[in-house]
């Protein structure tokens, strides 16, 4: 059972109260209509899916119902940190993330 610290509630709570919403920090293209199929497909469907540190979005659905980010190891399931939307993680993988083929101007990274 994971115990997750909700940065909004300031409490360590059981995983059953939370809903995982996948990879975090995916900026929505500012002008979706101007995207090519490849750019839009990358934004919609393609994910890093790392074996190791993963920055991901969680929702405290049975608590404060607010979103926040977490850095979690996908092999050991250890949660290194949880942090507010709009802030950057303290823990990052050494290897540089793969760049997407998306080149269109992107929204602010959240």
């Amino acid at each position, binding site marked *: 059972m994971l115990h997750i610290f909700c940065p909004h509630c300031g409490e360590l709570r059981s995983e059953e109260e939370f809903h995982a919403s996948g990879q975090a920090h995916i900026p929505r293209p500012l002008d979706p209509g101007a995207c090519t199929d490849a750019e839009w497909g990358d934004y919609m469907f393609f*994910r890093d899916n790392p074996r190791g540190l993963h920055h991901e979005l969680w929702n405290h659905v049975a608590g404060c119902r607010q979103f926040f980010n977490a850095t979690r190891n996908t092999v050991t399931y250890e949660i290194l940190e949880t942090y507010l939307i709009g802030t950057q993680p303290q823990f990052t993988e050494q290897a540089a993330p*793969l760049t997407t083929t998306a080149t269109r101007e992107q929204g602010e990274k959240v």
Partner: protein
Amino acid sequence: MQRYSGFGLFKHSLSHHENWQKMWRTPTPKKVYDVIIVGGGGHGLATAYYLAKEHGITNVAVVEKGWLGGGNTARNTTIVRSNYLWDESAHLYEHAMKLWEGLSQDLNYNVMFSQRGVYNLCHTLQDMRDSERRVSANRLNGVDGELLNGKQVADEIPYLDCSKNTRYPIIGATVQRRGGVARHDAVAWGFARAADALGVDLIQQTEVLGFRKENGVCIGVETSKGFIGAKRVGVVTAGNSGHMARQAGFRLPIESHPLQALVSEPIKPIIDSVIMSNAVHGYISQSDKGDLVIGAGIDGYNGYGQRGSYPVIEHTIQAIVEMFPVLSRVRMNRQWGGIVDTTPDACPIISKTPVPNLFFNCGWGTGGFKATPGSGNVFAASLAKGEMHPLAAPFSIDRFHTGALIDEHGAAAVAH
């Protein structure tokens, strides 16, 4: 290869079964192969077998980081069916089903394929409508299917709670009578033994760490035991496909999640078919040994841990007890998790990749076991020709850019 037969069994009994031939060799890797398959699970071994058998390509290696069939092949609930809604998937899974029906003879290995029938329960009027649509679509595609009403279900599955007082009353079901279960380990071992007999090298305890490229073209794999060259490389690594793609320098529309299953203590025969329910979210069958084999949904978060979370076990057991109150006091014996590679449209990716000569067969997600022979068969044809097999073509990775998704979510059974 010594062929297995009743006579052979008798002959070996005279020497106390101590002189059986090893099922496969333990070869040292050659420098170069025509085809390297990364991943020695059911799909990878099936690919190697059909490459050798149907395409005459025997200079093939299967490179596996652990032992054969030790990943999801050993961790699933062994259900086989082909009642998918959309044409593309129905054709692919029906192709697999036809291969299943002759597989034990073909491999000279008893995979214990038992066509005991697969039921999908309907709990709401909308379930009934969806199911009628699916059965009709199945029949048009030559896949058998029947729609049953509540009384027929109660007659056919005696211990199922079909009373009106349940939280999710059962008002009907679909049944595919050609569906059933197979012995998962035997499938891996049977394909491995038959492939080895045709000259395929099965290289275990060797991890593929990356891919070597020359002018952007894949020319082999870097492994924990050094470089092995190959004209073509097929990656069949299920939950680790995203990681392998990363090594090759591109991303996949895949997220890896733990999917768990449980078995109970062995009990007397009580369930003679496979019963699945979307609404209460569980499925169950009984193995020949007598243990109930139970499965449910995936964990919500990404994970490579090969273990599941406790809340999911609780939900699974709730679902089973909802369907079969008679099982409420059965104790669970073991629980485990496999890492499933889920795609956004719940359909596999059998495709070329941005790297020439590197092919991926992945994204089978929660329901890959049933497709094992079919997946291997079409992937082998694709690797042999360098062009995708017609049944595999719709499952190209390009569909996530063109938008031609094959949306099987909720169309078939709980497994999606």
